[in-house]
Every structure is written in structure tokens, then in C-alpha cells.
């Protein structure tokens, strides 16, 4: 299909991209600033990348962010994938109801979900901690995993799994030897989505993080008024680089996995 873009439009698109990346660029740029205040760029230095490790408040928050993201992604992916495969294969009475309720976390405003979680834990007299945080993250990312994996499975030939059963594999073996490898790209997509949602979350975490389970965004929020030292920038830059690498990495792996799908 021949598509050509009006140069005016191309310039426009570039401007929008610049708009999107401006704050990110600023954060990265100032991580190299010799000045403590993020005002003027005075000199280039790597100092902040070294000093940030000794900022315990920051590092704790960072550690928590990573732990929560990793665990919630793992749980959401496992639960979500199993659910997706199950929904795809079986017919049963409550299927419609479950499918529909999976959409609830996607549709309701995050804030509502956040306070619902708050109310739940408070009414059970549980103080907020890592566990409550992780549980909340899993709850809002799991439906995305289910939907992503499900849309991937939808196109699959059911006779391939039948072939596995025919050749002697019981249901569990079929799942691990045949189903899982085949849906791997979808599972990976779903996992990446869950990871993103967890890393990016502010609202839900605000309400479900405890005093000792502060995560990075909340740390930054509390530091804003007082003035943020550039080691926050340094850490943020590292996270940015990490995210980019992860994204690129998974895209490559995805591509490879998908190639073998073309049977």
C-alpha cells in the first residue's frame, strides 16, 4: 500500500514525539549535572551515579519497586495464563460471568480500585506492607494477562493439542510440552504488560504501600516539596535505560518465538 506523508504532518509528529520525550530527556540530562539544584546545567559529572547508592531512602524504595514488580508480574502471569488457557478450552456455566468480571479492573478508575483495596485491608485490620502492595498489583494486572494470552490462543488450531492427547500425553503433560511453548509469545506479551503496569503505577501504590514498603514514585512525590537531589535523576536514568533494554530484549525474543509459529 502506497502511503506517503505530507511533510507538514511528519514535522508535526516529530514535535509530538519531542513533547513526549522532553521531560525524560531533562531527567537524564540533569543526572549528569554537577550542581545539586536542578536549575542550571553547570558541569558534567558521574558523581550522582556513585552517591545514589548511599542514599538509603532512595535505595530502599528502589529495591521495593523491583521486588514488587517482579513478584506481582510472576504471579499475575501464572494465574492469568492458566486462566486464559482454561477459558479458551472449557465451556461451563459461569464462564460468561468470569470473563466479564475480568474486565472490571480494566474499566474502573484506578482510584476506585485503590481505595477498595484500602478498605479491604483496613477492615481486616491489616496494616499496609509489601504483601498488600503486591496483592493489589497482581489484581489489576492479571486481567490484562488473561486478555493478552487469550487473544493469542484464539487463533490456534485445537487439533494440535488433540494430537498430543492422541499420542499419549495426559492433560498436564500436554500443557507443558505443547500448549505452553505454543502460546509463549502471548505469555511473554502478557508478562511485559503486567510488568509495565506495576512499574508505572502510582495511584494504587499510594494507598496500598505501607510506611516501610515505600516505592520509588511515592518517594519522589514526598521529596518534591523539599527539593530533589540529582541522585534521583541518576536512579531514574538507570531505570529508564533498564526499561528500554527490557523492552528491546523482549521484542527481539518475541520476534524469534513468533517465527516458529508460522506453521
Amino acid at each position, binding site marked *: 500500500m502506497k502511503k506517503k506523508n505530507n511533510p507538514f504532518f511528519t514535522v508535526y509528529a516529530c514535535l509530538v514525539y519531542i513533547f513526549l520525550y522532553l521531560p525524560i530527556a531533562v531527567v537524564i540530562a540533569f543526572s549528569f549535572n554537577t550542581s545539586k539544584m536542578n536549575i542550571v546545567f553547570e558541569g558534567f559529572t558521574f558523581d550522582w551515579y556513585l552517591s545514589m547508592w548511599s542514599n538509603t531512602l532512595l535505595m530502599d524504595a528502589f529495591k521495593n519497586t523491583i521486588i514488587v514488580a517482579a513478584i506481582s508480574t510472576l504471579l499475575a502471569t501464572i494465574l492469568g495464563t492458566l486462566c486464559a488457557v482454561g477459558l479458551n478450552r472449557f465451556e461451563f456455566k459461569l464462564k460468561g460471568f468470569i470473563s466479564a468480571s475480568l474486565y472490571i479492573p480494566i474499566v474502573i478508575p484506578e482510584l476506585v480500585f485503590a481505595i477498595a483495596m484500602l478498605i479491604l485491608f483496613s477492615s481486616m485490620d491489616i496494616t499496609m506492607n509489601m504483601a498488600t502492595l503486591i496483592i493489589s498489583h497482581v489484581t489489576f494486572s492479571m486481567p490484562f494477562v488473561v486478555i493478552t494470552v487469550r487473544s493469542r490462543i484464539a487463533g490456534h488450531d485445537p487439533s494440535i493439542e488433540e494430537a*498430543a*492427547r492422541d499420542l499419549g500425553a495426559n492433560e498436564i503433560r500436554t500443557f507443558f510440552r505443547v500448549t505452553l511453548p*505454543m502460546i509463549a509469545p502471548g505469555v511473554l506479551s502478557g508478562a511485559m504488560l503486567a510488568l509495565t503496569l506495576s512499574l508505572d503505577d502510582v495511584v494504587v501504590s499510594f494507598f496500598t504501600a505501607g510506611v516501610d514498603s515505600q516505592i520509588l514514585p511515592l518517594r519522589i512525590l514526598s521529596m518534591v516539596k523539599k527539593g530533589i537531589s540529582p541522585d534521583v535523576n541518576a536512579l531514574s536514568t538507570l531505570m529508564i535505560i533498564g526499561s528500554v533494554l527490557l523492552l528491546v530484549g523482549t521484542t527481539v525474543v518475541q520476534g524469534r518465538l513468533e517465527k*516458529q509459529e508460522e*506453521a
Partner: protein
Amino acid sequence: MNGDKDVIVRLVDVEKEFDGVKVVKKLNLEVRRGEFLTLLGPSGCGKTTTLRMIAGFSDATTGAIELEGKDVANLKPNERDVNTVFQNYALFPHMNVEDNIAFGLVEKKVPKKEIKERVSEMIKLVQLEGLEKRKPAQMSGGQKQRVAIARALINRPKVLLLDEPLGALDLKLRKQMQLELKHLQQKLGITFIYVTHDQEEALTMSDRIAVMNDGVMEQIGTPDEVYNHPRTKFVASFVGESNILESYVEEVRGDLLRISLESGKAVLHAPGFKKEEMIYICVRPENLQLAQAPIEHFSIRGRVIEHIFAGSVIKTVVELVNGQRLRVARHPGEEDLEVGTYVYVFWNPKKAIIVHTVEEQIYNVIEGNLNRMYEEFAEKYSVADKEA
């Protein structure tokens, strides 16, 4: 009828219902050990459903399915000693040829060394040498088909089920594979149950054919039986080409019937019929003959409409006075009949087949015995020969 043969699969009064619709109706089938049995029929006749019930992917609504005498109702597909070759191959996309073929053996926990041997044996058998490490995505339809067959056969199943495996291949390849499959079956001696809608394929490969229509098995027999002695109108028209004529018995003289059709009169050799019966006759295109002058006892007249060139045979379409069109198979050497010529249609009285409805099959059984009696009678008194 088949008591002394070893029965390996038996379906007893098997029925299958989907959403209140009976897809398979009271099916009774006995599959003999070592035979190549084909379930033949149009789409929706229940043949694939039957196959799937034998494999275990579908449960019969009522009735029993036995494998070597044992009821398999409680056995899941992976517990039955039966393997399937699927219509679209169903190869595991993430595994190469070797791993695909070895799948069943790995499940049975066969030692690695043995697996390696058996796999290379299989690969030789289906002529896939050199392709061991290929993935399905990089193979042609024919190659994938062989992998599917090898993957199933390597498990030495008691019965191999094949669900229209050659449907997606081009004509030449299909014909080649038909012969290969037949030879393979004969070599290995494994019972094959084959499903297809292609009657030519069924006639080529099978030891016996079970013709199914709308959930019912209308006839089961050898290719010769099904082709030359179809029991019902459906079987006559589905298997091979046929011309079906409705007629009325005017006179009976021993074994010969003088019949009256809408388009004229004819003679038929068919013992056991009475005057004033309505019967359907089936005459194959290769048994119809044309003449430019009337033949004794035959007065069916028509007009040549067109000639269809079909390679070694020319199918001449003749339109009868009542509008019905017959197809006559003629050879290129025969006399040229221009389109529009008026011709008379006749046939060897012994080459016309009478077909009935299913309800009258019982009659056929009796009739079969009667046939033998009349043949002896005819020989004694040579009445038929004098008349024809």
C-alpha cells in the same frame, strides 16, 4: 456374515447427539483386524464424528464402542491404543520433524536409544531422510503429511485413524499418497480406518467401504460390492457416476422384466420382482450404449446435447424425451454422433442395477438368496438367453 474374522473395533448401537440433533444414528459397525476400512460420505454424514468417537475426543450419546472386545467409554484419548492422523496434520510447530515423530514414544518413556532407532526407521519408511531437523513451518504439505503419518504409526497402534488426510494436497500428490498409504498399510498390517468424501479415493484404497449418509451407514462392502451392487439410491449415486431411472414393471418373464419408463421401454435382468412394482434402476455411464436405430426391446429415445472430453473417455450427454439427462461413457474410437442427433439408449440387461431404500435392505438379503436360486433356474431353462 463376518463371524469368523477377527473384529478389532466394534460399534454397538452408537448414537451421537449435538444440541438435540442426531449426527450419528444407531450405528453398528465391525472393523476387522488388519483391514483398510473407509468411512465414505458427504460432509455432515457423521463419518468424522464417528472417527472422533473411536479416538476418544467425543463421547457417544448412547451405545458402546469396543476396542478388542473391551469397552473404551472410560478411556481418555491418551489411554487408548489408537492413533490419529489429523486433517490439517496438527504438527507441533515448535518441534522439528524428529521430535514430532518421537512425541508418543517420549510419553511412553521409551529409552532414548530405542527412540532414536525407531525414529530413523520411521523416517526411512515415509521417505523423509534429510529433513529430520526441519520445523513444520519450512515444509510442504506432502512432507508434513508424512510426518503426521510417521508420528502416529511409530507408536504401533492397534488401529490408525485417518481423518481426510489427503484433502489439502494437489491431485497428483494425492494419487501418489493414496498408493503409498495403501502399500504402507499392507506392509505393516495395521488396521486403518480412513475417512473421506472422495469416492474414487475410497475405491482405490479400501478393503471395505462403509457408505454413510445423514448419520446412517447405508451399505458396507468391498469396493466391487459397493460399486456394482449398490443397495440404495444414495450409494448408487454417490459411489461412481450413475444414471438413475425411475420405472414400472410391466411384465415379468422368468428373470426378465419388461419395464416402462417415462421416456420409453426397456428390459432388465432381475429375478424376484413382481408386476406393477415401482423400482429405481441405476446404470453406470460405461454400461450405457447408443444406437441410431431402435434395438429390440428398448425404445428409450433421446437427443445428443453435448460431448464432454475427459481424457480417455468421452462423456456424451443425452437428453431423453422427458427432460432427464443421461451420461454415456464412450471411447474416442466409436462413431461420431453430432450434437442434435436422435439416438436410442440401451444396455445389457444384466448390467443394470436395481436400488431400493434402506428399509428394503431386508428384502435385499432375502433377494440375494433368491438370486442364486433363479440363476440356477435360468441355467436350467435358458429362458433369459433366448429373450435377450
